[in-house]
């Protein structure tokens, strides 16, 4: 069995081994914590010229990664917390996302920005955020949220091999999740559609990243409600073929609950409900994350498996 965290490390090994134009750059890549172990010892195996630890400069580092991407490389720029990736927002939103379009097309921008949702443990407001909706708002960015070890590995590989800028967001709450991993077979990121993780008849649960895992757990908890669970690993762009998977399910079950591990305002859950013409959502309350353990438990309660299960039962009148 391989954990989600080990799967990410495996993806790095595969990419660095198979593709000489891949390199990693970011803060903490030589630190003993190795980005939650997801990049352990990479610099020892592949050298510090390809696994580059950097000054405390998110904007310049991300900008440099973009420049290197224009120069023929496939960099993975790592932000061990998405909260810090905010400091590089110009590079991602104004530059990387627009680069191909605003110059009339024709030059690939194979940049992968890996940012991690890393929260809980009383870390507080600036070490807890899930900001995927910010990125998913922007045309030109592909936004990837793996919920399983297989996707954590295969979609990181797909992101790096993609010729467009990709924001790949993994979640530390999933790092211990385990699965059997088949041998690597590269997939085209553009071909990734929402996945029906479990078939059911009473209600459709939809999530991305950690929220998809919570939907699965909730479905396990529910004996009297038959849940269909759909994981959406790529939340931008979402095209007709993606919406059709969700629509078909909702037409069958007649009920849809969208779970998103962040705030609701202008968020992904609202986008799904709008596209489907209905459904309920579970998101975080509109407040910064508290530190106090008790408040923290209360804060995250709405996006936990128990809350998902309870809401599902309510919706089904069970």
């Amino acid at each position: 069995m391989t954990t989600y965290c080990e799967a990410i490390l495996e993806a790095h090994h595969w990419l660095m081994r198979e593709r000489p134009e891949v390199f990693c750059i970011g803060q903490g890549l030589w630190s003993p914590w190795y980005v939650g172990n997801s990049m352990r010892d990479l610099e020892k195996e592949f050298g510090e010229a390809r696994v580059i630890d950097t000054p405390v400069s998110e904007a310049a580092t991300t900008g440099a990664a973009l420049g290197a991407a224009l120069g023929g490389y496939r960099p993975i720029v790592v932000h061990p917390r998405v909260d810090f990736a905010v400091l590089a927002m110009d590079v991602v939103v104004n530059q990387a996302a627009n680069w191909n379009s605003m110059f009339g097309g024709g030059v690939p921008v194979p940049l992968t920005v890996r940012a991690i949702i890393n929260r809980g443990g009383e870390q507080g407001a600036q070490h807890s955020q899930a900001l995927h909706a910010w990125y998913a708002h922007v045309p030109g960015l592909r936004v990837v949220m793996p919920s399983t070890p297989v996707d954590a590995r295969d979609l990181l590989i797909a992101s790096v091999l993609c010729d467009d800028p990709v924001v790949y967001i993994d979640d530390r709450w999933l790092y211990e999740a385990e699965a059997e991993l088949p041998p690597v077979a590269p997939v085209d990121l553009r071909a990734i559609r929402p996945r029906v993780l479990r078939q059911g008849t009473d209600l459709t649960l939809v999530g991305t990243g950690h929220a998809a895992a919570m939907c699965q757990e909730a479905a396990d908890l529910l004996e009297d409600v038959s849940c269909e669970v759909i994981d959406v690993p790529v939340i931008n762009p979402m095209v007709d073929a993606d919406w059709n998977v969700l629509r078909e399910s909702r037409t069958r079950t007649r009920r849809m609950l969208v779970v998103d591990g962040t705030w609701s305002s202008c968020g992904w859950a609202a986008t799904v409900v709008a596209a489907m013409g209905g459904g309920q959502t579970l998101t975080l309350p509109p407040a910064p994350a508290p530190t106090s353990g008790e408040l923290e438990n209360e804060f995250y309660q709405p996006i936990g498996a128990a809350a998902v299960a309870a809401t599902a039962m309510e919706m089904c009148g069970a």
Partner: protein
Amino acid sequence: MSKPDAARLGALGDASECHEPVDLAGLTAAEAQAMLERMMLIRAVEERIGEAVEAGEVQCPCHLAIGQEAVAVGVARHVQEGDRVFGGHRSHGHFLALGAPVESLFAEVLGKDTGCSRGMGGSMHLRDMGHKFWGSVPIVGATIPIAVGTALAAQMDDSEAIAVSFFGDGATEEGVFHEAMNLAAVKRLPVVFVCENNLFSSHLHVSLRQPADSTCRFAEAHCMPWRRVDGNDVVIMASAMNEAAGHARTGEGPFYLEAVTYRWRGHVGPREDLDVGVKRKDDLAQWKRRDPIARLAAGLGVEPDWAPVRASVAEAWRQAEAAPAPAPRAHLERVFS
């Protein structure tokens, strides 16, 4: 000679100085003539764009660099195959100095499909990879770290290519400028930073924005060699670029050039008197005596012949005007590669 003060422009910042003819300093007349013609082309192109803006023929915001032509042309003289040059909102001159076609610039500001950015960029988003111009964007300072990244790529390639990053004095007030300088210095990346210090960011004089008027102090802070030069003397400009590029190309790391210059027009658009006050009007008259074109012509002992330049510019404009607009929905097909 003692080292100049990294924080003060001194005589270079004084409009009443540096009016003398350019010293060719060993350059052949033909070489100097070629640079003169390139500067005249840039001037004539920008004047034509200015007229078009005034006449309402061009809608996109155009930031003219009239008066600053020597910086672009001097730097371009030492840009080689494989190098990667980046600019900002005021980059027509950078683009043309590298030899990119006038017609593709005109077509771009007119929003035509034959524009260098296929009508997706306008004046502020120019690119011509074939002429080593990798991109200009209007977010101030934004291309500085990107240029540094292309230098990182060149270093990883083990090539002799360098990155050239053009920006203005205003960009040195952006945080990312300092981050990028530090990153380039600590990784010894082959990049030449070219600060066009024209004393103004938009309408605001440097004295109202910074505690000292020279940006070379930032190079000192990042342990980087630097030179401050008369950016209106194309020979001195080229010579400084030769030194800077040689330094970067031979693995010695980044180099910082501050080119002291002045823009004759307002921040945006063709007017000389918009968004600037009376004081600038007096200064401008002085600065016009530092005209890089007139000074080089005087150094060469020639009278600039504008007629053929203007004729070729007029022809390029006609071609651009006749070019087709982008196809409908083209913007929807370029979101991804």
